[in-house]
């Protein structure tokens, strides 16, 4: 194998260079000695003369030794370490460039690689199951209003029967249950209610016992549970005979029928699986039943497109067969969609967000290009300052390629170190994200690996390489170009033309900064304001707790009478708890809602004014809510007992922002609204009976709308929600044990989570916003700093290049003001062009985003940012310009002469 021999030879030359060199020396010495002896023998000369002649015949020993070294191949590799050392030394010698450039590149790498990590692991992950990429989610999206319709029980039945391109069609949902120990202690857990087909679709057999079976789905089947490996060990100490034992989940004792192997957490992050009860097909009405996620596995040979086509055909057939009255109800505005399975977590398909994430990733990575172009300007400045060194090397025979290579290696030292810092930031960020998910009560889906993946590291390496090319190669090519080499011989060496490229770069970066900074400042500011806002009410007086009553799955199993009977038995739980709490000393009031004040589900509403619709946050509160929180009414009235007595179409109350945003001011009381996407059929109009002040007063939603719709609910109707207890004379943390003591006496299956001060909940939300604001501030500061540094470098050049001209002008009696003006004129011109382009760009982007990007504040913010960039640029230019003033005419002329 010739190439193996060749490779071995090269590697020897690389790794045993010293030894190879010594052997070459010995070989050549042998040659000269043999030749000396031959001459002595043949020509009868003495040893000294013979040796001289032998050396002449041999030629330059040093030269041939170098040629032998080159002939070994890969000689350039050994030069690399020297270049790396030189690069490191240069970084230490120019700490300003190292810090500014390094910081910028580290932030850019962190943003690019972090974006790649999050987007890929959350939106384009690989499912770690056998042929996991063939598992799909089937959903229905609302073609009229966007969003999903999740009440898919009827569709599940249809798809199971009819789909051929998707097999093992099943569904799941996550429910909360209390696991009740024999001692009576209850602990809330998350359970997957899943069809038996889930285990088939995942293709993972149980470790012990059996998976769920079709028979378990029958409404009358005895309750069974399959447990995960962790649960088997933590609760049952790995008991090998655990199958057949029972555990109490909520109200019923469930028989354990199987244990899944370690790491199995399908469908998302579950460790308990109970059967999803699917009623007989004839009892399931379209659009009824609980919210479900439907999944399946592509049949052998079937493609996504085939599955998509098939669900579309089924939907069309249903539409054609439907009653015309049904069509008007809007049920058929939902379009079925086949999406990657991970969509059960990312929910990207319904909004068609997939391409948006890819675009976002590209944009995030483009930050690296922008940053590196800035650093390249700085490096170019330094490279040209080193022109004497480059000239010497060229004179000594270094090729242009060799010099460019050396500068590339030097740049890669900077970008490599930055990548290390950037990747560390990414690793910390990913861990924080993971912790955030876990502390938020969730856990990441089984397909997400929160660590630094090999893909992310590779991506960061690619960015690093890109950075090194931009920072090292571009300036090096320009600095070693003919133009520079011509000027290099002059005594004023180090002076070079800044070509159009760099002028363009300065203009471009100012333009980008002016276009990008306003939205960043706006959103960062919103985050910061959110992080520091005063909520306008005494949050520390409130204890808040999440509550869940088991059997929230009662709704919609098809058997209305049975559901209703079971529901009735639970109606007393929450009211009983509320009245028990109200009777405690120090309790001022108790109220129930679905979310923390300020939060709420996003929904679109239509108003009875033609053509008016709005995106709002909608939340359910009980009759006492406004009273307990002390919310002021601006118009109309609060909810009355008569409202609560209505079974449906109860009136609603809206807030001031709703009136401003949805109605454009004016009278709201008496107007009517409706939720078009609430269910398959459009609901009836609901009346607005009151308007309240925005609450919490200082609360501004940094991302979504502040418009709120409060719907009335009764404690007796709530199987889950939030409970707020207003206290006087004691702290929420002091009262928490009382709540924990009372709750089980009311109902042992009542689960309480996140019990604590309302102030703590808001503080957590603020911390997240604070961190986001910090992130935006760091990126913004990097962009500004780099822009300033780039302009500074440009000006330093301009002044250097014009030393002679300045000297002559000063000698001819030009005043310092004139000189300063002329020096600054070029910078000002470039800055002005940049700001102008940036203004146009910012406005265009704002228009494309439908005004959301700048939130109507563009007219003020963009010019202010433009002005700031102008000032920053001029300040950066001022230093070199002042240096220009100090140029002595004689000195400048002598230097150039």
């Amino acid at each position: 194998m010739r190439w193996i021999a060749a490779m071995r030879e090269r590697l020897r030359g690389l790794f045993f260079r010293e030894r190879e060199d010594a052997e070459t020396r010995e070989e050549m010495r042998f040659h000269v000695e043999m030749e000396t002896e031959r001459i002595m023998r043949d020509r009868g000369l003495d040893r000294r003369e013979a040796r001289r002649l032998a050396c002449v015949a041999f030629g330059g020993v040093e030269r041939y030794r170098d040629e032998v070294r080159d002939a070994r191949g890969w000689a350039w590799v050994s030069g690399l370490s020297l270049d790396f050392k030189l690069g490191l030394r240069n970084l230490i010698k120019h700490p300003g460039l190292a810090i500014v450039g390094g910081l910028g590149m580290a932030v850019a790498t962190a943003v690019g690689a972090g974006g790649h990590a999050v987007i890929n692991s959350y939106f384009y992950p690989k499912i770690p199951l056998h042929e996991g990429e063939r598992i799909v989610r089937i959903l229905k999206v609302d073609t009229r209003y966007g969003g999903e319709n999740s009440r898919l029980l009827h569709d599940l039945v249809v798809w199971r029967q009819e789909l051929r391109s998707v097999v093992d069609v099943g569904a799941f949902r996550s429910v909360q249950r209390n696991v009740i120990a024999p001692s009576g202690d209850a602990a809330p857990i998350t359970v997957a209610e899943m069809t038996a087909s889930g285990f088939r679709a995942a293709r993972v057999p149980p470790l012990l016992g059996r998976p769920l079976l079709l028979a378990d789905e029958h409404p009358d089947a005895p309750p069974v549970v399959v447990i995960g490996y962790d649960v088997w060990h933590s609760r049952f100490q790995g008991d090998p005979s655990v199958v057949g034992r029972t555990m109490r989940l909520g109200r019923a004792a469930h028989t354990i029928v199987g244990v899944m192997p370690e790491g199995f957490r399908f469908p998302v992050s579950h460790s308990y699986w109970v059967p999803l009860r699917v009623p007989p097909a004839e009892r399931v009405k379209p659009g009824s039943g609980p919210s479900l996620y439907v999944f399946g596995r592509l049949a052998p040979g079937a493609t996504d497109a085939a599955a998509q086509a098939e669900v579309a055909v089924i939907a069309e057939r249903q539409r054609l067969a439907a009653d015309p009255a049904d069509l008007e109800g809007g049920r058929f505005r939902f379009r079925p969609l086949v999406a990657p399975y991970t969509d059960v977590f990312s929910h990207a398909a319904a909004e068609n967000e997939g391409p948006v994430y890819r675009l976002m990733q590209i944009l995030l990575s483009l930050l690296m290009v922008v940053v590196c172009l800035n650093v390249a300007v700085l490096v170019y400045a330094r490279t040209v300052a080193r022109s004497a060194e480059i000239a010497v090397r060229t004179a000594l025979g270094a090729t242009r390629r060799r010099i460019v290579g050396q500068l590339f290696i030097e740049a890669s030292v900077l970008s490599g170190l930055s990548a290390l810092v950037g990747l560390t930031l990414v690793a910390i960020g990913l861990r924080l994200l993971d912790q955030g998910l876990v502390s938020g009560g969730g856990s990441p889906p089984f397909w997400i690996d929160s660590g630094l993946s090999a893909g992310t590291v590779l991506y960061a390496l690619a960015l690093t390489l890109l950075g090194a090319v931009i920072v090292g190669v571009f300036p090096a090519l320009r600095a070693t170009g003919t133009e520079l080499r011509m000027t290099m011989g002059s005594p004023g060496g180090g002076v070079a033309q800044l070509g159009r490229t760099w002028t363009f770069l300065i203009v471009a970066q100012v333009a980008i900064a002016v276009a990008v900074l306003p939205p960043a400042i706006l959103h960062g500011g919103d985050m910061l304001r959110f992080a520091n806002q005063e909520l306008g009410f005494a949050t520390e007086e409130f204890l808040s707790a999440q509550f869940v009553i088991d059997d929230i799955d009662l709704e919609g199993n098809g058997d209305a009478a049975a559901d209703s009977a079971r529901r009735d038995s639970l109606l007393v739980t929450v009211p009983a708890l509320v009245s028990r709490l109200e009777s405690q000393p120090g309790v001022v009031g108790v109220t129930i809602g679905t979310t923390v004040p300020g939060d709420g589900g996003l929904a679109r509403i239509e108003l009875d004014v033609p053509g008016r619709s709005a995106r709002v946050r909608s939340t359910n509160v009980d009759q006492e809510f406004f009273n307990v929180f002390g919310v002021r009414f601006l118009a109309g009235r609060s909810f009355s007992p008569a409202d609560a007595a209505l079974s449906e179409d109860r009136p609603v109350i809206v807030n001031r922002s709703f009136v401003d945003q949805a109605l454009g001011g004016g009278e709201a009381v008496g107007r009517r609204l409706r939720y078009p996407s609430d269910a398959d059929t459009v609901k009836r109009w609901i009346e607005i009976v009151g308007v309240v002040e925005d609450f919490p007063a200082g609360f501004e939603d940094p991302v979504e709308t502040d418009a709120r719709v409060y719907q009335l609910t009764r404690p007796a109707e709530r199987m889950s929600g939030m409970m707020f207890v207003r206290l006087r004379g004691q702290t929420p943390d002091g009262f928490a044990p009382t709540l924990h003591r009372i709750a089980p006496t009311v109902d042992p299956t009542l689960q309480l989570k996140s019990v604590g001060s309302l102030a703590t909940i808001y503080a957590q939300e603020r911390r997240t916003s604070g961190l986001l604001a910090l992130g935006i501030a760091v990126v913004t500061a990097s962009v500004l700093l780099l822009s300033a540094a780039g302009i500074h470098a440009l000006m330093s050049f301009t002044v250097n290049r014009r030393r002679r001209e300045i000297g002559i002008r000063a000698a001819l009696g030009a005043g310092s003001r004139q000189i300063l003006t002329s020096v600054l004129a070029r910078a000002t011109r470039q800055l002005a062009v940049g700001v102008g382009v940036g203004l146009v760009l910012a406005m265009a982007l704002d228009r494309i985003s439908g005004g959301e990007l700048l939130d109507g504040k563009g007219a003020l913010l963009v010019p202010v940012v433009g002005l700031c960039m102008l000032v920053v640029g001029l300040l950066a230019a001022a230093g070199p310009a002042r240096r220009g003033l100090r140029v002595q005419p004689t000195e400048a002329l002598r230097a150039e002469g």
Partner: protein
Amino acid sequence: MAHDQSELLQGTLELLVLKTLSLEPMHGWGISQRIQQISQGVFQVNQGSLYPALQRMKSRGLLRAEWRTTENGRRARYYSMTPAGARELEHERSQWQRSSAAVNWILDWSGGAT
């Protein structure tokens, strides 16, 4: 006299080295002596230039080298030809014969015309 000792053509050196080593393994000095001998001094090898050529051929897998002791007890690096080197020699030889025949033919033809 200088015309008699023509510069060794680039590439020809490798052919001569291979031919020399096809007989027996040899050290660098031996190779240079043999080339001068068999070419009767026509090819004046600048002796040092032999070594980069040997290293290049070694890197290409045409030669292998090993340290041995000479007849008079000195340590020397001996080069021998690998099978790849033998193939290369055959290839180079036929190339050379073809091109030299062509050149000869052209020269003869030109002579006939004048």
